[in-house]
């Protein structure tokens, strides 16, 4: 009898073994759901909701979000996996798999009477050792296009078809390299705009070295295409807001009110005039043209005045695009038109509009030295675009991680096999029952190569035996070749994982698993909210 039931007879509770069983079965269940997603050969899921919404994904994180998990333990694991995604952008499926497997392995020993506390202590030692191994096997890399291509390609191949992955790899790496400007430091990924266009097919996805905006000119007479354009970015209202004028307290007569309105209007007209003056100063007599991109609104009268001068004006630009424009085209985003100079202007070789149904897009291209770029995602429908967007995000993160780590880990399960072998040796140096836990940890790691093999249609045991034997003989790391089912050297094929991702996984999985193991009582009590 749990003590809680003395205080609250309605409380539900589960103790010791039973509590553990609840947690383990939840973890296993989640693992089963995610199992088929792992690796390049994992299946992609198409989710159709009860209302007909379509979502195509393989991203563990997206799947977890979509499943509306209610089980408390499962949702705890799901949250760990989401945290993994937030901090590194990859490894969500692996996290869930590993937590499930750690609990599964632990269960075997626990049923034989091992205390959970000893188990968790062993896990800690094993984790430290595994991290040591991770540091030993990491391959320092030079940050160049080839290496970045390899890591991005490994990440993307697990998300989409290889031919598409190759295309996206090129796009992602070019994007990061362009904005990193040869500094080889991690970049601000916000400076890569992802713009979607429901149009053509996904193989038309491309990198635009400039900016694409999801809105266009709102005046029929404005030019649709401009060459050699000066770009003025601004955050200045060019619309006449009737604010406070109406309330009737300010004026006695109608003429007074008229005067007030005119004065107000004049104020806006002055601003427009300043822009037009600048345009005349820099463009007249040359073949240059002028574009105004404003974060605030521009009303029809101002648009009209600008259109008469041949200025292309866009209103209500994204706040972040102000920063991006300054980086892509040069110039400064202006907060007032009081002191406009030529040096405040940016420059783009061509600016043009593209209309798709009710949506307009404005391309700002051919910038001299763009430090902000746009990946233009195309696809025939929304769910295709969404999936590519997710894949590209992960690809970009992988590249950025690599630049940050300056190191990679050989992929295709190679690290897990090596860690298994090392841990098996390490186990013998441990005294007492904790060594069982180390063994459990080692066994659990193998779930990654095992699942990779199963998803590709090979026999799990067969593969593991081959890999572990091969690994012991070879000083270099050995991974699984998914095409043949035979061991191979990941470094030869260019299959790499991010160091930070693996490190994060080892940390979070062992902690969550330990926490779940130490739970010896699960209870549901508290005040009932059900009408009572």
């Amino acid at each position, binding site marked *: 009898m749990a003590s809680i039931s003395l205080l609250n007879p309605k409380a539900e509770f589960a103790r010791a073994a039973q509590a553990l069983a609840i947690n383990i079965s939840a973890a296993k269940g989640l693992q089963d759901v995610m199992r088929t997603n792992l690796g*390049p*050969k994992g299946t992609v899921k198409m989710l159709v909701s009860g209302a*007909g919404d379509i979502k*195509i994904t393989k991203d563990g994180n997206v799947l977890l979000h979509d499943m509306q998990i209610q089980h408390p333990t499962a949702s705890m694991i799901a949250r760990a996996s989401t945290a993994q995604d937030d901090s590194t952008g990859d490894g969500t499926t692996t996290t869930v798999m590993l937590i499930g497997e750690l609990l599964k392995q632990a269960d075997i020993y626990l049923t034989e009477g091992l205390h959970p506390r000893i188990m968790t202590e062993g896990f800690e030692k094993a984790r430290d050792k595994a991290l040591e191994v991770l540091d030993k096997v990491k391959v320092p890399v030079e940050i160049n296009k080839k290496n970045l291509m390899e890591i991005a390609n490994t990440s993307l191949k697990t998300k989409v078809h290889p031919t598409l992955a190759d295309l996206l790899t090129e796009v992602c790496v070019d994007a990061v390299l362009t904005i990193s400007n040869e500094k080889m430091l991690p970049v601000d990924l916000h400076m890569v705009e992802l713009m979607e266009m*429901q149009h053509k097919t*996904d*193989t038309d996805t491309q990198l635009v070295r400039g900016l694409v905006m999801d809105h266009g000119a709102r005046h029929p007479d404005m030019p649709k295409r401009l060459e050699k354009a000066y770009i003025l970015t601004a955050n200045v209202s060019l619309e006449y807001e009737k604010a406070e004028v109406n309330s009737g307290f300010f004026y006695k007569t109608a003429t007074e009110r008229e005067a007030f309105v005119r004065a107000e209007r004049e104020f806006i007209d002055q601003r427009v005039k300043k822009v037009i003056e600048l345009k005349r100063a820099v463009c007249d007599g040359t073949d240059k043209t002028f574009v105004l991109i404003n974060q605030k609104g521009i009303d029809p009268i101002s648009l009209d005045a600008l259109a008469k001068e041949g200025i292309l004006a866009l209103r209500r630009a994204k706040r972040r695009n102000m920063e991006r424009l300054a980086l892509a085209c040069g110039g400064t985003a202006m907060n007032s038109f009081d002191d406009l100079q030529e040096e405040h202007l940016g420059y783009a070789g061509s600016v043009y509009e593209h209309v798709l149904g009710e949506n307009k897009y404005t391309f700002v291209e051919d910038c001299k030295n763009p430090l902000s770029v746009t990946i233009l995602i195309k696809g025939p429908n929304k769910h295709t675009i969404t999936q590519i967007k997710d894949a590209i995000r992960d690809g970009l993160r992988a590249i950025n991680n690599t630049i940050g780590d300056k190191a990679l880990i050989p992929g295709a399960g190679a690290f897990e096999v090596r860690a298994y072998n090392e841990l098996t040796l390490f186990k013998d140096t441990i005294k007492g029952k904790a060594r069982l836990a180390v063994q459990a940890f080692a066994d659990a790691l193998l779930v990654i190569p095992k699942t990779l093999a199963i998803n590709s249609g090979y026999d799990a045991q067969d593969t593991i035996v081959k890999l572990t034997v091969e690994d012991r003989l070879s000083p270099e790391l050995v991974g699984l070749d998914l095409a043949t089912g035979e061991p191979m050297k990941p470094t030869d094929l260019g299959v790499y994982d991010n160091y930070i991702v693996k490190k994060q996984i080892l940390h979070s999985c062992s902690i969550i698993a330990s926490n779940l193991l130490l739970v010896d009582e699960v209870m549901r009590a508290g005040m009932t*909210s059900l009408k009572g």
Partner: protein
Amino acid sequence: MDHTREILTFQFGTYANYVGAHFWNQQEANFVYDGESSNVAEEHLPHNDILYREGVNDRKQATFTPRLLSVDLVGTLMHLPVVGELYGNYLPLATDQTADELQKAKELAEQNKLSTHGELDVRQQPAATISEYQQDLLKNTVNTQDKDYNLAETCSSWADFLYARYHPRTFNVLQGMLQQPDVQVLGSHCSGVELWQSAAFNEDFCDRIRLYAEECNGLQGFQLLFDIDDGFGGLASKCMEHLNDEYNRAIFALPLHYPRNMSYAKADTRTSRSIRVVNSVLSYKHLSEQANLFTPLSTLETIWRNQTLESRRMPGVNWLADNLYQSSAVLAAYLDTVTLGYRLRQTPNTLLSFCERVTPANRKLGAAALALPLGMQREQDLIDFLDGPDGSLMTQLTPGCDPGTTHVVQSVVARGIPDARLKRPLEQAGSQISKAAYRCNSVSQMLQLYYQCAYHSSLTHAASTPLPLKTHLPFPYEIFDASIAADGFKLPGDGQRERDTRVASAPALAAVQNSSKLGTHLDSLHDQTHRVQLAKLRNFSQVALERDEYDSALDRILEFRDNYEDSHYL
């Protein structure tokens, strides 16, 4: 300037979406299509472009959809796809070819190399149940005359009776928050605030606002409907802050109270009440700072401490007090009527002038009042009706306050009274001619005069349109008494409407009122706060509500209440 003066509407929360669904249904019921003759003159119709946008979908069909952003929990959309039904991008599940469509979508995705190695693994959730009304709507066989869909009892979400169709930008579903029948999932104001600040929600939502605003040539402001009892109040509060920062336009906010006592996770009745009070306090603080006018709406008589759920009663209609479908229709009728004040074609009024007219001396809290149906008898003229027995024409819809009859500032809109029913022509006038009101030539003039006489030293702005409120399906036509005729006027004597005829339209009168007496509404909120033990509210301590924040909100409300002191006004 002759361009459209657009208004953007927001709906935060489930009940807000109920009211909104009725509101948009009402708009579409009043559309006049080309070639159709209407007995209401052009200039008396609402200007639809204010609330609606024209668009083109991917099949090159023209669309006309509300400028609307709606936020709700997972599961409230029922059979509606998140992307709306007009722009594709979903599988039509109601038709027989679902399997084919699914196969096609799957093949297309495979062709597009979305799968890592060819095959896609399809996981289909069971199709959502579609209400009978929606099924008939799909088949285009809705029978508004005879068929009884019994929506009041069968409707489980606002999607069940939504006639209007929305743009793909409209719906925002809060991922991971599944609607639960008896517990409010997004419980506290603070969790709403937190949600607004989360990058996943914020970026996307602000971008949608921006896209709507970019389309507008002369955006005049925003209408916000939101549930104030739960976390959606926090979401709306932050949204108003954002709107003021970015757009600086008029905001007309309508906080809605559920017609039942909501419960929250891990809270008993008592705690639930405290949570409601604290949610209101925090929302009122933001409303008093951010909105230009806010009018709390509820069909309940009082809130915060209304254990028996005493509901308002309106002569001529009877709704089930805690029925969301019916009560929201009453609130939507109010909203539609009162907003006509700035939505009619050729009206010189803007949202801003509308708000400012009834908020003297910063009294931003206004009270709502509605008469539905108006209570005029068939064959009776307005002049005689207004001359009838004393007493207020309207019923209050703002809980816990009554603006009284002196020193009232109000904006009144009357609808559905044809000009012919104003008064008799001179030759048949009879006793009417002796009344002062006989000079009036329009409904609005007459109302103005009426309120001049009836309300001591008050300021009334009246507007009117002969366009009645359409009360056929999906409006709950069943709430009308038998004494109301099919055209919404009262039958004389004990006359009864024939059993199988339904009320198809009704005249209505709605007002936003303001007077010193509204201070009692704020007082009653403040009184309730004495019972709140903040430390006990676990819901709030989880998502850190700082004691200071709460105290400063309370101070702010007291300060705001001072605006309602008599000495503050003129």
